[in-house]
């Protein structure tokens, strides 16, 4: 690469020239290295900015509302004026957990059974078709799921089943669709974990006379446990943070009573509340503006804790094969 400069150099100054070329090269190498480091640092800066932007408004929110009232209050009515306004986040958290719970009841068994089928039972040809389809489904925008719940599931399935008192926005529809939404993600990641278990383990189990069922559930599943846990936790945290399905089909969470109603009533969630309140209009410094950041910070902390737990679990149950 440096041959042209070397041959062009006069014979006497050759050594010095080589040295000079080398140092110019190492300077540019250093510059490139620094630029790459700067790119990598952007992700850290992003986290810092997220925390700072959330904390700043959250702290001034807690200047107006006591932390105890926020964490233990059972009434969420930030929209009301004056004394009527109540900032107990519990109903919002309960709504989120309720919908996430319904979602996981749907997504975990269906996702894991699909993953076991694809990894352990399905013929190669089936897997080659289903796997990319799963990946495409995992990328379908969430608003499509919300739209389906709003325009089909509630009016055409839930109302005929449970009667007209089913609210247009209801937790059941939102939960079912969030479940369907995270199903491909869980199935796809769990399948990756199951297929990465070495073949020799299965052969060993078969050699000992184990059936395919025993092999799948007692040998492959435990060996892939860390990946399967990661899949479920990732699905859960996606469900908790899911916004559009709940905003369209579950309720916006702007006014919540102290009791969380039946699944056929609307409730809303933390994420849906943020999106329904922060439509770009809330004035900086207003209590409505601060509220969305306080709820956002709560949501951020819940997802962070979940992710850290997942990292711990994954490293505890990780089995290393050659």
């Amino acid at each position, binding site marked *: 690469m440096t041959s042209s400069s070397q041959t062009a150099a006069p014979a006497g100054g050759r050594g010095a020239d080589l040295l000079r070329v080398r140092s110019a090269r190492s300077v540019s190498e250093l510059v490139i290295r620094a630029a790459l480091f700067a790119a990598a640092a952007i992700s850290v800066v992003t986290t810092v900015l997220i925390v700072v932007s959330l904390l700043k408004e959250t702290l001034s929110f807690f200047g107006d509302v006591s932390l105890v009232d926020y964490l233990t209050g059972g009434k969420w009515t930030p929209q009301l004026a004056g004394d009527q306004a109540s900032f107990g986040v519990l109903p919002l958290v309960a709504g989120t957990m309720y919908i996430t719970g319904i979602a996981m009841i749907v997504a975990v068994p269906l996702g894991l*059974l699909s993953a076991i089928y694809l990894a352990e039972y399905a013929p190669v040809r089936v897997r080659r078709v289903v796997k990319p389809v799963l990946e495409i489904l995992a990328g379908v*925008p969430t608003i499509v799921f919300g739209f389906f719940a709003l*325009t089909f599931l509630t009016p055409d399935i839930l109302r005929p089943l449970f009667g007209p008192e089913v609210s247009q926005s209801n937790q059941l529809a939102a939960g079912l669709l969030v479940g369907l939404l995270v199903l491909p993600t869980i*199935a796809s990641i769990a399948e990756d974990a199951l297929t990465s278990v070495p073949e020799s383990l299965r052969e060993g189990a078969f050699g000992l006379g184990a059936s395919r069922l025993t092999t799948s559930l007692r040998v492959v599943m435990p060996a892939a446990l860390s990946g399967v846990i990661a899949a479920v936790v990732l699905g859960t945290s996606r469900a908790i943070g899911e916004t559009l399905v709940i905003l369209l089909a579950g309720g916006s969470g702007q006014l919540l009573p102290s009791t969380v109603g039946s699944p056929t009533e609307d409730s809303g969630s933390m994420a849906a509340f943020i*999106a329904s309140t922060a439509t770009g209009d809330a004035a900086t410094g207003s209590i409505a503006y601060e509220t969305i950041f306080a709820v956002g910070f709560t949501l951020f902390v819940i*997802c962070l804790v979940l992710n850290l737990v997942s990292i711990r679990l994954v490293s505890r149950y990780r089995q290393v094969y050659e």
Partner: protein
Amino acid sequence: MSTPAQMAAKAAQQTTVIPRRDPADARKERSFAFLMYAALAVAGISLAALVFQFVSDGAGALSWNLLTNFPSKVSPETSGVKSALYGTIYLMLLTAVFVIPVGIGTAIYLEEYADRRRWFNRLIEVNIQNLASVPSVVYGLLGLAFIVRGPFSLGRTLLAGAITLGLLVLPVVIIVAREAIRAVPSSIRDGSLALGATKWQTIWKQVLPGSMAGIATGVILALSRAIGETAPLIVIGAAVSPRFLPDGINSEFTALPIQIFAFSKDNDPQFIQLASATIIVLMVLLLAMNSVAIYLRNRFEQKW
């Protein structure tokens, strides 16, 4: 009674006998198979119903007018999604300009330069993992507080939207690009370095071309995630049904998911139908991008 030879033969016979399947075992096996097929059927039918519903509902409203007319809040017959379609395409291009250099740069740094014994390099890695699990609506809050208002104060512009979406999908690009770079065998690097190339020359001329297919796939997947995102754009305040096209990066904008959201909140069934049709437009765009990704993966994948 029997000679040792007979006993040995008998023993051999016993060990080669295949044990009879326990009928209870077979029953369990059958019911598990039933469970699996039922799960697959429920998942498959629901997801198929989801696709069928918007396709059958929206197909009737598909026309060129949908793509070439501006949205209307009063007359569904003449309402289109022109501003949203342009907005989405501009957003995608701007996001690409941001995430391609930053995402690939980060991946190269982490794979080729970073010393994992240094705490800040480990911090970067854990941090990217955490960022990937932050809900998208929280990125919207970041965009609102820092980019639309606050220090950057860009307003509700195309640029603000693209930066917000770029930060959101950056972890996806980094994670996929790292895998692609890691797949390039170290013998390639050793060979290049042995021939006198510098580290950067090795990366630029050997590692990047060798991992291009994987990196391109990651970028396309990240961009297709970006254009399907609704929540962060709602939070930063994207315009609802504007009747103008963005005329630069500092212009207000809207995007297809926002338009779908606006249509689907209407009570008029004709607007609901428009929402279905707009979903078809968005899904066609996403499928096209996915097909390009699959093509790139198959066409340029390196076998080492």
